[in-house]
């Protein structure tokens, strides 16, 4: 049973560019959340998608946007990249019944130069 898969694993972009990260949730999970983890810090909540809609959003600017597809997979888009956007981007999925914790992917390491 595949867990959460993310692609790509690593990415290097230039300031001002745009990036799209992809995530496939664990089988049986329908809710996807995205987190940003800077070096030496805990994951910070970006947003959560359920039934193809953004349900909750953290304290991130509009440059961060997302999408969820009918098969529950999700994309995170970041426009006008800044050096400070360099981080590990984590996708997490959960079951539709109750909340007993997330299953995380291995993340995408984004470096902005």
């Amino acid at each position: 049973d595949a867990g959460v898969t993310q692609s790509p694993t690593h990415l290097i972009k230039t300031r001002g560019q745009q990036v799209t990260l992809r995530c496939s949730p664990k089988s049986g999970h329908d809710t996807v959340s995205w987190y940003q983890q800077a070096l030496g810090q805990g994951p910070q909540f970006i947003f959560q998608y359920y039934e193809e809609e953004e349900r909750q959003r953290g304290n991130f600017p509009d440059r961060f946007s997302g999408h969820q597809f009918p098969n529950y997979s999700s994309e995170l888009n970041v426009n006008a990249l800044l050096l400070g956007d360099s981080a590990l981007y984590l996708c997490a999925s959960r079951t539709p019944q109750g909340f007993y914790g997330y299953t995380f992917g291995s993340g995408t390491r984004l470096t902005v130069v």
Partner: protein
Amino acid sequence: TQLLEQSPQFLSIQEGENLTVYCNSSSVFSSLQWYRQEPGEGPVLLVTVVTGGEVKKLKRLTFQFGDARKDSSLHITAAQTGDTGLYLCAGAITNAGKSTFGDGTTLTVKP
């Protein structure tokens, strides 16, 4: 703003020693999770606690949820080198909502 504070930030011990790490907040959580994360990987769920005063054991790891559901502790008995990693706690205010993470405790177990 929900804030989870974890202590200590760093912990370095010898194999065989016992240790306890803490997770504290002023918020009441409907559930609290502990994760372990290794470099370059995503966090891996260790346990979820939901009831105030609850104690859960996972082999040599003992997790406790505070009576008021605002804090938690993780105790490791006879630490092994394989326990090395970043231990993160995360709290959820509601079952449908987001989880807020602490900044973690980096544990190094030396042989």
